[in-house]
């Protein structure tokens, strides 16, 4: 039995180390999956997703009452600019999630006083346009999500043009 003491202690250490590493990796793995699924229109551009239904569920528990527009981003080549145009009289919000799944920014239509606004997402040290409202992040990758509430799914026809006023793009000019 003494022959097993070393191997069993080794196995326990491996188990603990594996569990810690896996727990740390789970958020990044799930976020990567979400970026891939939502990013089929490309990275650093807004995709105006169709409403969730049984055949289209890019994330768990999608809401069929929400029109989700998503901007999977990658800041490795420079900051991102997100332009949001609230739709009058409707709940809408912009939320930004980093690669670790943490929320780094949320603003709804009331907080924006119903007015359009621009948010710059940038790594520490990246130059941003002077005076721009900027969210700094520790990660290159993430997802910006614009939610727009519908009273009924059929409303998407009349509101689709309005939600397409929101967009995202890499910052190319600093002025």
């Amino acid at each position: 039995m003494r022959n097993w003491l070393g191997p069993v202690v080794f196995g326990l250490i491996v188990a603990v180390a594996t569990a810690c590493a896996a727990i740390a990796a789970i958020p990044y793995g799930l976020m990567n999956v979400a970026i891939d699924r939502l990013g089929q229109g490309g990275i650093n551009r807004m995709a105006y997703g169709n409403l969730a239904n049984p055949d289209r569920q890019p994330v768990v528990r999608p809401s069929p009452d929400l029109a989700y527009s998503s901007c999977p981003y990658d800041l490795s080549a420079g900051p991102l600019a997100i332009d949001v145009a609230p739709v009058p009289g409707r709940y809408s919000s912009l939320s930004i999630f980093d690669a670790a799944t943490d929320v780094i920014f949320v603003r709804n239509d009331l907080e924006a006083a119903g007015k359009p606004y621009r948010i710059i997402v940038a790594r520490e040290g990246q130059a941003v346009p002077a005076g721009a409202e900027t969210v700094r992040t520790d990660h290159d990758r993430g997802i910006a999500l614009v939610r727009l509430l519908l009273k009924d799914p059929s409303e998407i026809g009349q509101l689709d043009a309005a939600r397409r006023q929101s967009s995202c793009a890499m910052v190319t000019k600093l002025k």
Partner: protein
Amino acid sequence: MKSWHRYAMTLVGGLAVGLGAAWAITGRGLSDGQIVNGPWTTSLGYGTKATDPVTRAAVARAGLLALPAKETVYWSAKSDAAGAPLDGNCRYSLSGAPLDARWWSVTLYDAAGYLVANDAKIWSVNGANVALDDKGQWRVAIAPDRPASGAWLPGTKGQVFHLTLRMYNPGGGFRADPAKAVLPRIVKEGC
């Protein structure tokens, strides 16, 4: 048996146990800030900057891209008022007063959290499309077949279901004590 054989065996065993433990530890939803209100449970930990890796992984698995509680409170129900699992073959009455929020909706999912196909293409009800009776109450039937009258949320024949109640911009009174808020009742009427 050679010594390295023993090490190889415990290495494989350790990897397997470690991965299994990680999945089990992060799969129980959120225990931090857990609030229970009748059959409904929520955690105010969604959408916050997680303070430890276990919470972060649990949130990523249970509610990736979910909003913080100030923005939206997500309640989940897996059982009716009597504590029995929600059965897609049964008929339920879902009812209540308008909720203390700017907007609310109730969505029906399978046990894994996904929408289930139905011919009516109805998966949710919300504050804008339910009618109030003369007592200011709304009522929705959850059943596999469309009821003769009234609002309907199609059940899931042959499988259990879960309900998610979303409250967008919940009111101050609600946020002061979510555990005591009046939430929709889920009463089984027959199978």
